[in-house]
């Protein structure tokens, strides 16, 4: 579904990614882990087009997408739920969700009815969002905002979803909740690339994982294998 090959990207003069490669197969959950500043988020941004890669290829559904605008890549079926959640604060919860499906809804009228089924599915998954659907997103708690961000990405019915640090800034109880939802999504067959700082969290849900360090992938494998690897310690010491 997603093949990233030898990707280079950075901000201004400093290069953050120096040849990242990874693959996400259809229907799998892939974890991307590594210490702070290793380039995980930058990888996500370079894939989704928020940041233009300077070199390398990104193939989405066997079509090259590197260098396209983020909005174009999103329309091709990639949903990126960014680090820090980035919900549209002034808009209501429901508007946030509807915008998640922006590219496949009519622009002027009748979009609500076209999105009704999807909306219901998301509300099923996150009953709390249903309760607060008229509230503006900025007033939600951190955990609720994270759920909204995931729900918003789901609304796009993406071929693949990129989820960046869903546990960031959340209390452990809430993180448990978020990860149980990710497990449920996994059962429903979602294709997901998950960035997570806590390796054990990522290993809970991932079918396969990549470990990044200083802008490149240094290890990969099945979580069960990686967990035993002594080199993990080294990677995390960065």
């Amino acid at each position, binding site marked *: 579904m997603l093949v990233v090959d030898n990707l280079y990207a950075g901000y201004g003069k400093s290069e953050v990614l120096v040849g990242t490669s990874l693959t996400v197969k259809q229907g799998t959950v892939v974890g991307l882990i590594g210490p702070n500043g290793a380039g995980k988020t930058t990888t996500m941004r370079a894939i989704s087009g928020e940041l233009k890669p300077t070199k390398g290829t990104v193939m989405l559904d066997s079509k090259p997408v590197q260098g396209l605008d*983020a*909005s174009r890549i999103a329309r091709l079926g990639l949903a990126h739920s960014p680090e820090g959640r980035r919900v549209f604060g002034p808009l209501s919860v429901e508007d946030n969700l509807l915008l998640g499906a922006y590219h496949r809804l009519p622009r002027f009228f009748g979009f609500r009815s076209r999105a009704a089924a999807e909306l219901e599915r998301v509300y099923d998954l996150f009953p709390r969002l249903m309760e607060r659907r008229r509230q503006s997103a900025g007033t939600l708690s951190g955990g609720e905002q994270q759920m909204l961000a995931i729900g918003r990405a789901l609304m796009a019915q993406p071929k693949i979803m990129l989820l960046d640090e869903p546990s960031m800034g959340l209390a452990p109880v809430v993180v448990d909740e978020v990860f149980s939802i990710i497990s449920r999504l996994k059962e429903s067959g979602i294709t997901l690339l998950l960035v997570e700082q806590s390796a054990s969290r990522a290993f809970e849900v991932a079918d396969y994982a990549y470990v990044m360090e200083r802008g490149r992938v240094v290890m990969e494998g099945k979580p069960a294998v990686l967990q035993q690897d002594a080199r993990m310690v080294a990677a995390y010491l960065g």
Partner: protein
Amino acid sequence: MNGSVIAQLVVSGSLMGLVYALIAYGFQLTYATSKSINFGQGELVMVSAFICLTMTNLGISYWFMVPLGLMCGALLGLFVERAGVRLALEQKNEGWILLTIIIGLFFFSAAENIWGRDDRPFPTPISSEALQVAGIRITPLELSVALGVFAIMGIIELFKRKTLLGKAFEAVAADRDAAELMGISATKTIMLSYSLSGVVAAVAGLLVSPITTVGPTMASALVLKAFSVAVVAGLDSGFGVVLIGLFLGSLESLTSYYVGSGWREAPGLILLILALAVRPTGVFGKIPIKKV
């Protein structure tokens, strides 16, 4: 002081105030999506008024000319975005301030030379014979200004709240990058906001020209007060510009009656500088969170 004189002054002043509010609303539209405004908005008002006048002189009927005029406004807005704003936004600098001033200057000079420097009357089918309502004189023409302002602002606000495209507009205003990730093209949204802003300018031109006559300098005073209204109200509150516009308009007509007509500009400008001293983000504006 006579109560009915004051009431009369307040009513006619607020009608002009609504025009300021409308032009200020044009600033808000573009500010929302791109954090930029067209400093040459007054020239857009003036040029679209001239184009409408030319169309009328060519024998096109008023009601057919209106939509054409609005389209010209939209095109002018798009031109400003392309030539003056986009590059600076891409480079993340404030060159657009200078460039929109420059484009305005160009329009001004072109209008001066193409249509001449004199003020010309603008024909309108709406009567300017005064009606007496509760002791206050008001003409249908003035009423049409109020109606027109509320109609266009209402339509755009409805569009923003009720259509998905409008919500996308607000999403870009709230978080441009996140909106891109939803498949919303920020560039197109900004283009849309500039063309809407151009339409608003054209509407303002159509509404005021029968009252002020059409000439190259017709909008320079208007736009100055619209700036005041926009900054005093804050660049993100549509409701705020109407209130402040009404307030400023009445204040102005009272000043010009009681102090002297030459001073009519002063309250707006003083209000602006005062408001900035007290609340830099505007009376109705939001205070941004600094980030590091």
